[in-house]
């Protein structure tokens, strides 16, 4: 039995396929699509559990512990609850936009995983512009969020969506600039090639880039402390205020899938992706992704929410100049550093990061114009 719908289609791709792809294009497509969907859904459930339990423990409480052992079935219970809820569409809302928004917001996030390598060469599509594709496709989710904000016909949802758009526009720049530093060192845009280039994890070669990417990533996917697009205490729930039932579940899923995507990209380009001793590569990848997400939970528990002006000030006055300087220094290093001494770059770059952050903390003030913040 073959999965090819038409032999012509297969033969069209057959010549362009790398020889090591097992079973041809369609098998590869099917296997990796299933792997990605299962990976995303399973890890999103794991993340919800990890976030709620971890946050609970950090706040000296237990977190959900009624459903299943250690509350492991809590995400399942949440999903069932959300599926059984009534789907309400606001009477004055833009119905089509309101209906489409969760889909538009969720699927780009799922598509990011097409280029994330689970182990050497194990990815849906080894695009030679992999990281550019990630940057491009991840911004599309914002359109969905703005559609949700607009289509709900609610001032809070529109406010939240506009904040989100503003934040994504601002944070995309330092995010991309920090990625460019990695690309300069790795010499490739393909995520698999970037992982293969990491004999030294890029977190050591690009510590400042890592910091900027982490902050920018957290801001883009509205994780606390940058979760003011859905700040419960001021704009109730932001863009998904008018959503219920399955559509809300899509947004919830998107939120965690985005966190997973940022963790996966961060793992891939800074932490050495699937590389690691002893354990199998996919397990290393999984461990690193979960560790990165744990740091996100950790910062969420710790830091209070920032205001919108502080968010903008952080992006334009702190992250952007540092990203530019980082890019400049990285460019000089790539051009002039002797290839025999890659490890010597590590202390130099860490020192540069420390000096830059210290200096910028003098120049940078939150709440400009106020005496004390």
């Amino acid at each position: 039995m073959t999965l090819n719908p038409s032999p012509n289609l297969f033969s069209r791709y057959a010549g362009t396929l790398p020889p090591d792809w097992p079973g041809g294009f369609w098998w590869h497509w099917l296997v990796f699509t299933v792997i990605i969907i299962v990976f995303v859904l399973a890890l999103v459930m794991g993340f919800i559990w990890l976030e709620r339990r971890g946050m609970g423990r950090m706040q000296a409480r237990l977190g959900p512990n009624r459903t299943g052992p250690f509350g492991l079935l809590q995400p399942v219970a949440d999903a069932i609850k959300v599926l059984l809820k009534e789907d309400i569409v606001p009477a004055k809302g833009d119905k089509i936009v309101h209906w489409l928004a969760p889909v538009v917001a969720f699927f780009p996030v799922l598509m990011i995983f097409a280029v994330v390598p689970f182990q050497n060469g194990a990815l849906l599509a080894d695009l030679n512009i992999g990281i550019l594709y990630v940057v491009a496709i991840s911004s599309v989710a914002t359109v969905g969020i703005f559609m949700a904000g607009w289509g709900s016909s609610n001032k809070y949802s529109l406010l939240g969506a506009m904040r989100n758009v503003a934040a994504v526009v601002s944070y995309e720049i330092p995010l991309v600039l920090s990625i460019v530093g990695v690309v300069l060192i790795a010499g490739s845009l393909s995520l698999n090639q970037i992982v293969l280039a990491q004999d030294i994890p890029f977190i050591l070669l690009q510590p400042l880039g890592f910091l900027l990417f982490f902050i920018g990533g957290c801001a883009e996917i509205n994780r606390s402390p940058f979760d003011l697009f859905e700040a419960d205490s001021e704009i109730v729930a932001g863009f998904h205020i008018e959503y219920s039932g399955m559509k809300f579940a899509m947004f919830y899923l998107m939120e965690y899938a985005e966190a997973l995507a940022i963790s996966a990209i961060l793992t891939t380009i800074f932490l050495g992706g699937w590389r690691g001793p002893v354990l199998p590569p996919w397990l290393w990848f999984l461990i690193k992704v979960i560790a990165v997400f744990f740091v996100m939970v950790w910062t969420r528990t710790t830091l209070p929410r920032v205001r919108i002006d502080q968010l903008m000030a952080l992006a334009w006055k702190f992250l952007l100049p540092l990203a530019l300087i980082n890019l400049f220094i990285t460019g000089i290093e790539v051009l002039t550093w002797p290839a025999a001494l890659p490890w010597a770059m590590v202390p130099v770059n860490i020192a540069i990061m420390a000096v830059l952050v210290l200096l910028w903390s003098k120049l940078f003030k939150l709440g400009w114009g106020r005496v004390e913040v």
Partner: protein
Amino acid sequence: MKFERYGKGIAKGLMVTIRHLFRHPVTTQYPEQRLNTSRRIRGNELIWDNIKCTGCATCAKSCPQGAIRIVTSVNSVENKYVVEKFDVDTGYCIQCGLCVEACPYEAIFMGYAYERAKYRRGELVQADEMLLASTERRRSGYMYPEIAAELPKQTLLVEGKIKE
């Protein structure tokens, strides 16, 4: 040059939260895990001693809610009151403990229990024999240190791991 905004506060905050991750949680799983309450708790019931009670109705007079009703008749032979009816509407009771403090004969006590919710208002009215002390209806140490000494010590969360 003084540096103070380079993220020291963030690092300090992160250390606090990670330390809490390895601490024991302060919440308790209530139905399975019960803590000992204060030995001087003013629980939501009253305990009445019908032997010591003389029917003087000081408790009823002291009750700011008027929750205590006491009906007495006169026993002219022994020259004292006979308590015919003594009931407390615990739905009105605000657990102020004034009746316990007012009683000149140490005949009324606050209850030690706190799980006395009922489904009907009528069930909240406790009368006569229902008010007597028993193993389920222990007296609280409120106003009476000698009773408090017999009760188990209060569980304090700062003491570390909670015993089941």
